[in-house]
């Protein structure tokens, strides 16, 4: 898209979006405009210099010189950041959304395992590795290699493969089989960073997004002002690839709308997706809980020494679409493929971080019963990188969460 001519009068360049045209064509009355919002996508507020030596007239000089792009017709490409109405003018801090990717070791509830708070997929290495990203040292130490993606295994074989990969042979506990067993045995701890993106699953990780003030200048005990708290979230994802799934049950959430680009929108305002739990932990009588990285509500705002107030949180899982579960067509169309036969033993394999364990072959079996049903060396690795967008319904703040759908086939 070109820039708009800003040499003369202020003009408006208005277009219908593709969704708008679609609804007009449908002729069912769904094309109806009832509200408006304002956006500032092009603005970099970092250019606002409130300490300019020449005075306040120069504070926004560079901001006002920013050229504006023509309007996009793709509905999802516009108004990525909206202006917000708040009646009061004395707000100095505004909440953001942040992925709560802290790995939590405490089992949540008894019986069958529940998904743990979200964590990026990483390869687990030997114990005692120096902590990164604020994670404590010890048996849950993470590899320093940050992938910063959530992995969605589209079938059970892939899930087992990733679980094995994540906890390679002879690194922890009783041996190679342990983590594989833990990953899909009732009552055991699930493998973090990998979501079970197939039907009939209660295992695997989930994604959690927290709202709060990412500052140490305001105490967590002060809490988040009520007019800044999110009461609902909008989750947008590519409907060709996945569906929004409950964090604690095998329930696919009903989609609210699918646009012409196959972007599905889900409006989330109730449990188990929506939670006010983080704020409820803001007890001055137990201040230590604020910084407890191993609690069920690990803090992501501020730092260990001081944590900012928190709002609500969002929890969800992703289930792969039937197309991804049953076919490699979309993987070949919009993703990438890696032939493990040719790269087996290589130092790096696309789609999987780090080096793969070359000492194990599937034919020998890991545990009794041969739960790991395939020989990794004979497989191809398919993966699609995409994002899931989470938008705060009140403040309009949004984040894009990186997702990788993976299939070994």
């Amino acid at each position, binding site marked *: 898209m070109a820039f708009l001519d800003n040499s003369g009068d202020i003009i408006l360049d208005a277009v219908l979006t593709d*969704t708008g045209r679609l609804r007009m064509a449908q002729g069912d009355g769904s094309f*109806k405009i009832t509200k408006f919002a304002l956006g500032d996508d092009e603005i970099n507020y970092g250019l606002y210099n409130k300490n300019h030596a020449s005075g306040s007239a120069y504070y926004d000089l560079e901001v006002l010189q920013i050229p504006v792009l023509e309007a996009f017709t793709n509905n999802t490409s*516009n108004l990525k950041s909206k202006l917000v109405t708040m009646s009061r003018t004395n707000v100095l801090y505004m909440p953001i959304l942040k992925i709560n990717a802290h790995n939590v070791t405490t089992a949540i509830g008894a019986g069958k395992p529940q998904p743990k708070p979200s964590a990026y997929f990483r390869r687990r290495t030997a114990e005692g590795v120096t902590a990164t990203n604020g994670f404590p040292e010890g048996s849950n130490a993470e590899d320093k290699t940050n992938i910063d993606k959530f992995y969605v295994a589209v079938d059970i074989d892939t899930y087992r493969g990733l679980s094995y990969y994540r906890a390679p042979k002879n690194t922890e506990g009783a041996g190679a089989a342990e983590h594989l067993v833990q990953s899909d045995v009732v009552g055991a701890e699930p493998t973090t960073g990998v979501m079970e993106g197939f039907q009939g699953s209660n295992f695997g990780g989930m994604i959690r997004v927290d709202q709060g003030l990412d500052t140490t200048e305001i105490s967590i005990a002060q809490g988040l002002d009520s007019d800044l708290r999110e009461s609902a979230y909008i989750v947008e994802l590519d409907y060709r690839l996945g569906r929004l799934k409950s964090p604690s049950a095998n329930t696919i959430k009903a989609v609210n709308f699918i646009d012409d680009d196959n972007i599905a929108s889900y409006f989330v305002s109730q449990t188990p997706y929506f939670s006010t739990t983080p704020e409820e932990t803001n007890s001055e009588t137990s201040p230590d809980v604020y910084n407890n990285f191993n609690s069920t509500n690990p803090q992501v705002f501020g730092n260990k020494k001081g944590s900012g107030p928190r709002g609500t949180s969002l929890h969800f899982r992703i289930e792969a679409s039937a197309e991804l579960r049953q076919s490699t067509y979309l993987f070949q169309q919009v993703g990438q493929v890696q032939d493990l036969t040719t790269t087996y033993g290589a130092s790096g394999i696309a789609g999987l971080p780090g080096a793969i364990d070359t000492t194990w072959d599937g034919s020998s079996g890991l545990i009794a019963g041969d739960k790991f049903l395939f020989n990794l060396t004979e497989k191809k690795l398919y993966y699609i990188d995409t994002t899931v967008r989470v938008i705060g319904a009140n403040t309009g703040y*949004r984040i894009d969460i990186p997702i990788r759908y993976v299939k070994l086939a």
Partner: protein
Amino acid sequence: MAKSFKSLLGDDIKNTRTLLHEAIPITGTISSGTYADNNIKTFSHGMFESVYDYPYLSSSANHIFDLSYGITAQASSSAVTQVAKKRNIYNQMAQVLFGYDSNGKIRSFDSDGTLDDDAGRMDHCFFLNFSRLLCKDEIKKNSFRLGLFQSGSTAAPDTLVTLGDYDAGNEFRTSPAGDYGLIFSSSGDSSDNSKSVGLLFYQAGVAVISSSVFQSPWSPPGTKTTPIHVAAGLAATLTSSIAAAQKSLTITQLADGFRHRLYDLDFNNTIELNSTIYFCRVNHNEFNYSANPTYATASKLVVKNQATDLPITYITTIGLYSPDNELMAVAKLSEPIRKDPNTELTLRVRLDY
């Protein structure tokens, strides 16, 4: 409660209708020389030819008009080349543009616009069918001007006359295909309908020109020594009259002769714009904060030093939303507009249909 949307009230939405006019100038060389006829598309059926604004094999070419020729059933058919096709063309155009009489017979074109007599009946007509790309919704009345050479060879045309729908803004008629006006050779003739030489159908975008506008001598393209379209054994001479040409020449040849005598063509088209205007009223206490990721560093607003400072935002985009929060339309400002609690704005977004 923080919010990002503001509802549009009844007074904020206004529907309007606007007529836009575009000037359409077509120089005669486009139809007769600039592209060495590579922009003229002929067809094996020979019932009309199409004129493009560029060699038509190029994807950049736009179709601008078609040319054809027809005669009535009452006209003499003796020794007339392609008589059936000429009649078919005439009848087709007449039934669409002029309709039927009380007996169900196709009406003939009538140059004076009086349908209940035979006076002014046009038996031999050239048809200029303008493409919708040019006409849009209709041709603006009293804007049509067609410069034609009435006689001479195509190499040396003579007697330039400017046909037009003079005074059609005040006087026009209706037909099954919409309004039509009379075409005269000059503005002075417009007071006498019997001097009309053709009809212009505004909504249909068709000009019907009587062949009587041409005078002798009249020839198809080419000279006596290098005829282009004249069949073997058929003389194309300067002494050939339009009457003779109508008999001996095919539709394509007559169309070629017409376009080589076209000096220029101008008209204004009309576009009916139905618009909805949305008045997006931004009050002083609205939209003063932003969800832009750069708006805050460590959650602290970058435009404020302390809580008592006024919040500031910059508007670049206006989104129009459906009740279920889907973006229906988007408008962009050509430059950012500052918004703070001391300012109020009304942003006027117009959507045309």
